[in-house]
């Protein structure tokens, strides 16, 4: 086996590929689909990973979430035990604030459910989040005021009718006007429209997976409670005094919550204390599941593609028995013929791989253009995809190549 033979093999492979374009294309379709599936999906997932990393940076990594349910993906119905759990309340938040020495700030946050309308003159918005917050919101969520002022404890105490806007609301309602000091009208499912004075605008946050994080209106917590008196459930967000105190803060919060909710010492928590890492874990669970599905799909496609390659190579060996005889008569050894056909099979499946890579990248580019999902070029996976495609040719080419190598020149030269 020398370099000329590799070149010779690839040249012959190209010739026979060109001579049977349609047949070759159909043969490599399986390999093409398998590789395209891998490349397309990896490209999207790696794009997601990048934007998730950006999101984590923007939120700050030392945030603690206290919720009624564990964060994660549940298949099927939520079990009764979890549905019957007590809500996390405002009093819980106050208790954590007071009783946990390692916790620096606590922000109870509540989202108003149902239909909502925000109006300024002729402009109207219906799709936004209405959140009741405490003054600690800024620090805990790592999102600060850009213009005007934030909600103070006085606003909360006197239930003043003021609000702070996210960037999207400003753009939607005040395209050409400074919003500070203006009044907007807020209406909801259970309350008649009321006027609120704008006191500030928040810094812009980067969007996650193409979804804007600036589409919100913040109200003082107690003002919010007058609009949604029946909503008990809230999200409790806390921050340790320093990042080093993270573990300690989590332990203290868990202890306080267990006592307040009366969990016996031999029972597990009936609430969840999670961090950014847990959110990341959930995200990785999702992507790993996608990877698994992808591997299964592309394995099947590659298997089918491999059988196709084997089939067409067997046909090719039969068609070219005479050629093999000629080559052997003029000095080709068994292994020369073996390698010629292996290289041909690898060229066949390898070109399927190349087309698959191109197709997969094109697909992910297309997806990222028509949807908010980002795409990257996963260089390592391009390499892996190509290698796997070539290996498919190698593995499924062995038997046909072995058959070719066994051809007897005397018999095949008589073959017409």
């Amino acid at each position, binding site marked *: 086996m020398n370099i000329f033979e590799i070149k010779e093999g690839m040249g*012959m492979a190209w010739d026979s590929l060109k001579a049977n374009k349609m047949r070759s294309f159909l043969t490599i379709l399986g390999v093409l689909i398998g590789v395209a599936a891998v490349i397309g999906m990896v490209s999207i997932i790696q794009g997601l990973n990048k934007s998730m990393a950006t999101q984590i940076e923007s939120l700050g990594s030392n945030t603690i979430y206290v919720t009624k349910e564990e964060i994660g993906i549940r298949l099927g119905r939520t079990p009764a035990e979890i549905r019957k759990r007590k809500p996390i309340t405002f009093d819980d938040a106050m208790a954590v604030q007071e009783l946990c020495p390692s916790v620096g700030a606590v922000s109870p946050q509540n989202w108003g459910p149902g239909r909502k309308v925000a109006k300024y003159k002729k402009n109207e918005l219906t799709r936004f989040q209405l959140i009741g917050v405490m003054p600690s919101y800024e620090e805990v969520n790592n999102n600060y005021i850009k213009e005007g002022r934030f909600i103070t404890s006085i606003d909360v105490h006197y239930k003043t009718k003021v609000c702070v806007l996210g960037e999207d609301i400003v753009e939607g309602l005040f395209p050409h006007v400074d919003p500070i000091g203006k009044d907007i009208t807020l209406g909801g499912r259970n309350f008649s429209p009321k006027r609120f004075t704008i006191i500030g605008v928040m810094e812009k946050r980067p969007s996650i997976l193409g979804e804007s994080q600036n589409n919100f209106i913040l109200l003082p917590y107690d003002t919010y409670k007058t609009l949604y008196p029946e909503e008990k459930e809230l999200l409790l967000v806390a921050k340790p005094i320093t990042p080093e105190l993270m573990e300690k803060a989590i332990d203290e919060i868990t202890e306080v919550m267990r006592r307040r909710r009366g969990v016996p010492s031999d029972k597990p928590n009936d609430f969840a204390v999670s961090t950014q890492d847990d959110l990341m874990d959930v995200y990785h669970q999702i992507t790993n599941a996608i990877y698994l599905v992808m591997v299964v799909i592309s394995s099947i496609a590659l298997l089918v593609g491999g059988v196709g390659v084997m089939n067409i190579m067997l046909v090719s060996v039969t068609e070219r028995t005479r050629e093999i005889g000629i080559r052997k008569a003029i*000095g080709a050894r068994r292994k020369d013929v073996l390698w010629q056909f292996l290289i041909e099979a690898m060229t066949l499946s390898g070109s399927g791989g190349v087309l698959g890579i191109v197709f997969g990248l094109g697909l992910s580019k297309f997806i990222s253009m028509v949807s908010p999902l980002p795409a990257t070029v996963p260089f390592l996976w391009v390499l892996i995809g190509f290698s796997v495609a070539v290996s498919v040719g190698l593995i499924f080419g062995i038997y046909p190549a072995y058959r070719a190598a066994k051809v007897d020149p005397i018999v095949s030269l008589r073959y017409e």
Partner: protein
Amino acid sequence: MLIKTENLWKIYEVGAEKVHAVQGISLEVEKGEYLAIMGPSGSGKSTLMNLIGCLDTPTRGKYFLNGQLVSQLTDDELARIRSKEIGFVFQTFNLLPRATALHNVELPLIYNGTPSAERIRRAKDALKMVDLEDRMTHRPNELSGGQRQRVALARALSNNPSIILADEPTGNLDTATGSEIMQLFGRLHSQGNTLIVITHEAEVARYADRIIHIRDGKIEKEERLTKQG
């Protein structure tokens, strides 16, 4: 002595029957000789050619090529010998249909590992020897029968073999083209090449120095021809 065979036998088993294709042939060929092996079909001359051409091994007997005992070698060792010592010319030309004339001629050199530059030079030289240097980029289907046989002859010459072995080289050609090819053989012989032609036609055998007549797997008679001119 270039070729020396001692009591060569080749016995095929076809079903329960044994076919004695070659029955104890002993012959010697000297370097630079032009030999014709003649016989009717079924005489065993093709089997003898396969043995001499190292495509096959004898059932019994010894075969020395260039002093080397080659009758007991494995398939791959025989392939090695073929790529160095033997150039084949077939009745049906046996060129690779998708390859150019030049590439067809290069092929034996690829298998004996000749570096690329030298390979192309030698392939071009071989094509020049058969007067086809202006047809190098043509494929077999763009060439006439006589031209195809000349490409095959160039292929046989390219690795500078000890013997050129031709099996009915004019069998698929008309008389005029056939005699052109035979004249080319004569020219190659005069340049010092050893030629063995297997044929059933006396016309073709006539060009050789010596004719060995084969019948029923045995040497029937041997005649030496006096050189004309």
